[in-house]
């Protein structure tokens, strides 16, 4: 087996990788494929969110100007997934959330309905936007509850 050095796209890590590969003759270097995937989709989120924000701004400019920017009211999907996690997560880790109440409401009024897990949004997660969006099918339940 050949020696291989794998890193993410961080500058510091890449420098260490380069220095190590210079000291180990015949070694190969490549990049972490999880990080590469997240880099492409990170760019996708940025581009589509920009487009959505541009469209929403046309309709909502007047209303948005009245809202304090500190309240972080944006069309950012990651911000919405974090908010959904805090409000509806069944683990009820966020004290101000209503996960337990939501679960009880679902049991009472919608037995037999599929309720998918809200993605854990704590900390920094690069693939949060795509993975968190898979709950989109139940947004109707969350809104009507």
């Amino acid at each position: 087996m050949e020696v291989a050095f794998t890193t993410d796209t961080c500058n510091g890590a890449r420098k260490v990788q380069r220095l190590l590969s210079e000291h180990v003759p015949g070694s190969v270097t490549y990049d972490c494929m999880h990080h590469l995937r997240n880099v492409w989709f990170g760019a996708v989120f940025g581009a589509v969110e920009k487009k959505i924000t541009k469209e929403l701004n046309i309709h909502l400019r007047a209303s948005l100007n009245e809202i304090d920017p500190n309240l972080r009211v944006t069309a950012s999907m990651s911000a919405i997934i974090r908010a959904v996690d805090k409000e509806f997560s069944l683990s009820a880790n966020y004290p101000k959330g209503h996960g337990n109440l939501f679960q009880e409401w679902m049991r009472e009024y919608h037995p037999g309905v599929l309720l998918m897990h809200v993605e854990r949004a704590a900390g920094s997660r690069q693939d949060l936007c795509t993975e968190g969006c898979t709950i989109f099918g139940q947004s109707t339940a969350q809104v009507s509850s």
Partner: protein
Amino acid sequence: MDNQLRKYRHDKPSILQQNLFVALTSQEMIALSRLLSIFHISVCMPFRWLAGKTHELQDYEWSPLSMSRVIDTLFKTMSQLQDSSDLIEDDEFMMNIFEEYRDLLPPFKKYWDFIFEKKRMSVVARCSKDGSKVVHMARLRKELFSPTNRTNATTKALMHGLAKTAEETVCKELLDPTKTTYQYTSQSNSDKSYGNISAERETLQLGTMATNDVAESTLGRTTANVQRFGRISLSSAAAISTAKSNGFMQQESLPPRKRKSAVNVRSPGMLFGLSTEVQHAIVLAARLDAQTARKANIAATLLQFWPKILHDRRRKSWQRIRVWQMHQKNS
């Protein structure tokens, strides 16, 4: 819950909760979430599996260098999508982007069938006996590509517009010479592009990982230790993380709650492989060191707080002097 999201505090509505309510009912956001969900199940999930399982696929002549081929496939698909954005709603096209790898790698096919045909999840029910189980990912796939919900169905035009932007962005990212991914594409003609990889070189790389999972996992556990134990030193947090990941203190017998699901009895950790005398010596040394370690920890904590304590004392002294001076002045 509707009331909760619309409730008023201090005679004013909660803007953040109303924002969530509006976002969840907004067609634009539903279109965006539908698009990202399609990308997740058709691109991210298979790519993640292939990247994460590469080191286990050596029997099928699959190495980390083979991932360049997957990137080429992705680029080809995204170029096709750019020409015809209607394909984003085509179940057969989107879900078969990586079909050639399902034929090439039987474990990948097994995973795919498991996720979309066998993996089940319970529906909402008062108790587990009342509820039935459904293949949730199959249901999600059906709703994404052929929506039955009227709100989801009306997002078609909007989603096509967003899909075009997304596909253009992915192609641009893959072909950007300043980005890392470029060297893995055939267009770069570099030594990492699939066409330039020799069979001999690929054979040497069989069994190696294509990801940083091991390092990321260790770092994640170290962070968890720092968060859990407060002022623990970084070296101790890292040591606990490494000892756990290597199963250093793992016992042969499984705890009762895990016995049901476990197939085999696991092998004992390195500590239990040592002779009984050495095991006792290690525990004794740890107990003797505990007091010294505790004292050193307290000293380090005080060192951190010492400037603050001094500052507080000075402030209190000045306050006392000022009170005394005012008292003298008044009297």
